[in-house]
């Protein structure tokens, strides 16, 4: 990040390489749609680079950029039109998904995540797809650790029930 601010143009590519897949996956699980996840990831990087000189190094960079990804995803959800596409409805994987054993899991996960409130979904995504600790999630979302646990446990219980219903 410092190299980027000092004019090293290759530093931008390095930052993108380092974070794009993780941020893209956070957005993908939050939104359930490849195209929207691309949009959000791109917007996050644009905003991040624009705000780099306002970034306070005393905070962890990952917290800062993940927070942007989550917030941008939440904004995207709010902006969404109330229409539901057939793909969304059926949980059909986005174009490019391989027709292997992951497909069924993708469908089930997508369906279960959509059943959660966006705020709860964010906690689950950061826990299970970004592998963050309670403390790290609290830093990213700027909420108390106890709230993280409360949301996570409630959401996971909901996921459990949803998946059970789906099987039955």
């Amino acid at each position: 990040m410092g190299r980027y601010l000092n004019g090293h143009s290759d530093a931008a590519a390095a930052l993108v390489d380092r974070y794009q897949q993780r941020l893209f996956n956070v957005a993908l699980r939050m939104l359930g749609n490849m195209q929207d996840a691309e949009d959000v990831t791109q917007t996050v990087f644009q905003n991040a680079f624009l705000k780099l000189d306002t970034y306070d190094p005393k905070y962890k960079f990952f917290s800062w950029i993940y927070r942007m990804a989550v917030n941008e995803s939440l904004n995207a959800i709010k902006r969404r039109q109330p229409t539901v596409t057939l793909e969304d409805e059926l949980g059909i994987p986005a174009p490019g998904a391989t027709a292997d054993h992951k497909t069924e899991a993708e469908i089930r996960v997508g369906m279960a995540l959509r059943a959660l409130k966006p705020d709860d979904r964010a906690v689950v995504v950061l826990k299970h797809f970004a592998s963050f600790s309670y403390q790290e999630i609290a830093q990213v979302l700027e909420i108390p650790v106890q709230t993280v646990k409360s949301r996570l446990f409630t959401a996971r219980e909901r996921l459990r029930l949803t998946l059970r219903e789906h099987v039955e």
Partner: protein
Amino acid sequence: MLNTDQIELIQREIDGVNTPEDSARVRALVAADPEAQALLAELREVGQLFERVGERAPPPRLKRAILAALQTPHVEMPQSISRWFAVLLQSTTERLEEMVMTKKAILIGATAVAIVIAGAYVVTGYPRLGGAAGTIGDSISGVQPAARYHGRALTQGDVTLDNPQIAALFQNHDVLNLVKSDAFREVMKSDAFHMLQQNGAFREILSTQAFHMVMQGDAYREIMKSDAYREVMKSDPSREAQSHAWRELQANAAFQALQSNPSFQALQANQTFRAMQSDASFQALMASNSFQSVMAKDAMHVLQASQLFRDVAQNAQLSQAFLSEANRFQQ
């Protein structure tokens, strides 16, 4: 019936954060209570399901799109300008998000905005004759005025309404219908249209060499002629239609050529160009239904693809003459 503490204990076990003592309590609970056993098993299944899904690799185009959208850092750039630029673009992004064309603008990014601007330019024409072109470089410290385009000197014959180029355009039935349409009329009457014409950044960008080079380039002409571009401009802002049309345009060889065109890159990197994007009147015009309607019309597509019209569009006086003539037809 499990109590809250027992459920939390099991949840924490799933996350692997229990102490050895707590884990032992979980094992004892599970051994003694079938409900606890079922809960632990099902929660583990949830976690395993997420693990099976794993991560998706983002498409390669994402990195290219991100980097293309970034402004290359410049070590000599004063901090205040850097900060100003950051605020400016952030403001632009936020306002774009509120626009009707949000999806389109973000998806297409600076690339399509440039094309849309070219379209707006064709519709709105050059600044009025006699108006002094403003430059934001004059008012914002540190911003270098853009290189100016130096065209040939114009003669009185160029600006007369009897000019054969103007006449030829209005002999086209589609063009005539376009300028007589309600949408076109609304655009010309709108406050945003008039404010934009007075905007210094807008006037400045129209005079840059980079803009003219783009407008004259083969790649731009090919894009204007392409069905993919027409579909993008006609598409509904809804995600599905937009995405499809946009992918088609991305695959277009001319579009790819345009993105690698030095003039086009210079245009995108131009501070004034970016400043124009943040202008409220420009955004209002882009977001207006009437403007979008004009841009979506087949006749507009035909116009933009025609060399004759592009020649007119790049000439201040001819553009003015075109607008005057269009106005006359609307009477």
